[in-house]
């Protein structure tokens, strides 16, 4: 079992590294395509690695390791520290890192999943009036209304997504900002992003030991946000309202967020989690401000990357 986990970590790191470098080379790609590249990076440790164990068991044999493998973790195990091979040490350290990365996001995810109201509120109709014209013809989502919160706007619900909003949102956002923010949430609803997000969290739980899976799945969630941002920008015709809305909403919500409320004995961790959120918001704002040309043939590039990575990882044991 430890050997399978080690292979999953190794393949995950290689796939994530290759995809990360390629996405850096193609910064203009749409968030949707970037998301697909990240899902590809996740597919290798989640699907290809176990498939290779069953379909090509001879890859684990000495002959393959000795003659054909580009990299064999067994070789690393020949360097020993305190009676254990370096491959074991790396495996343990990386598994701990993976678990820590999962725990970092699991708490807020569960609080967000479980802690929101489940009732539709007729007052939500006020918000629907602010929806930009682009959503005309799209079935309006259910809106749940929360009181006593700071500015809050998010999409929840796996099978029938709904928008959760707070009244404080109306007070702090200008109408066009509110329209952009709602268009963003509508994009999550129409693309069923909460379901994909839950799937990603499920994968993270399954491969809790794999730090590459934790990092890439987190980046994929950020890409979903960027994808929804692009829909909102198309709907409003300009990135400015969304940018202002993001910044205002975040500033006004400071100190009220789940992670900043102060968990008993975990204040430091809460502050650290908020710093991650700040960075994520800043990255989204920066992306909205700079538009770059995308290279053509995204699907073909994705396919070629998948083939090249599969060929490489076949020889990594």
């Amino acid at each position, binding site marked *: 079992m430890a050997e399978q986990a080690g292979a999953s970590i190794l393949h995950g790191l*290689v796939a994530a*590294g*290759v995809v990360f*470098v*390629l996405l850096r*080379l*193609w910064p203009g790609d749409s968030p949707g395509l970037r998301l697909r590249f990240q899902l590809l990076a996740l597919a290798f440790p989640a699907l290809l690695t176990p498939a290779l164990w069953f379909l090509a068991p001879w890859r684990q044999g*000495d*002959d393959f390791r*000795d*003659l054909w*493998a*580009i*990299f*064999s973790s*067994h*070789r*690393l*195990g*020949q*360097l*020993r520290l305190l009676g254990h*091979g*370096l491959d074991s040490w790396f495996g343990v350290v990386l598994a701990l890192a993976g678990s820590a990365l999962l725990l970092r996001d699991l708490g807020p995810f569960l609080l967000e999943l479980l802690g929101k109201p489940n009732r539709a509120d007729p007052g939500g109709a006020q918000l629907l009036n602010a929806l930009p014209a682009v959503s005309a013809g799209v079935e309006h989502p259910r809106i749940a209304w929360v009181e006593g919160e700071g500015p809050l706007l998010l999409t929840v619900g796996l099978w029938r997504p709904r928008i959760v909003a707070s009244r404080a949102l109306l007070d702090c956002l200008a109408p066009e900002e509110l329209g952009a923010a709602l268009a963003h949430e509508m994009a999550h609803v129409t693309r069923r992003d909460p379901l994909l997000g839950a799937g990603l969290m499920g994968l993270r739980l399954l491969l809790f030991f794999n730090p590459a899976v934790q990092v890439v799945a987190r980046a994929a969630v950020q890409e979903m946000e960027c994808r929804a941002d692009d829909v909102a920008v198309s709907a409003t015709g300009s990135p400015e309202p969304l940018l202002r809305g993001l910044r205002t909403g975040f500033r006004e919500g400071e100190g009220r967020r789940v992670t900043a409320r102060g968990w008993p004995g975990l204040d430091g961790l809460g502050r650290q989690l908020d710093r991650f959120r700040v960075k994520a918001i800043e990255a989204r704002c920066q992306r909205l401000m700079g538009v770059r040309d995308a*290279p*053509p*043939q995204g699907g*073909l*590039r994705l396919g*070629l*990357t998948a083939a*090249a*990575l599969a*060929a*490489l990882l076949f*020889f*990594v044991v």
Partner: protein
Amino acid sequence: MARAVLQIVGVVSLAGLVLSGLEAVPGAVLGLPRGVSLAASLGEAERRLDTKLTPPPGWSGSFGWPPREIRYSLRPVRAVALRMEPREGAVNLTLYRSQGTVIPDRLRPPGRVFHSLEVWVKGRPALLTTLTLADNQVWQDLEWTEGAGRTAIRFQGPTVQLLGLAEALREAEP
């Protein structure tokens, strides 16, 4: 598009190169050429070589068991190098056993040969070679064929003692 293809090929090739480089690190640190592995235990070596490794008969006065270091290679033939643990007064010795007719050079590094001559060990022909290795030390190799396999001893002590160790070993061989 051609540029994107080149980028994909380049990045994946670079990843392969990095992995190859990483794989070479343990070999460089431990002085192991590619294809030669260091076994962490007798059990691991036996499992990899699919053979039982027993203490050389008649050597218990000079060398301890298990060996100080076990190296093995699986290609072109399965072979093992047992660097013995010298007891007080004994000198360095490595015992090589190959399941083929040769002992791979990467397992037994070749040196500059002074001379070699045929000798007899318990009525069977063997080759005695004197050579210097990369460490500039003088060593003696004594090797012979036994059935389908080949055995060699690389030793730094006197020739008489080397022949005696070989005879003790040969007495136990079928």
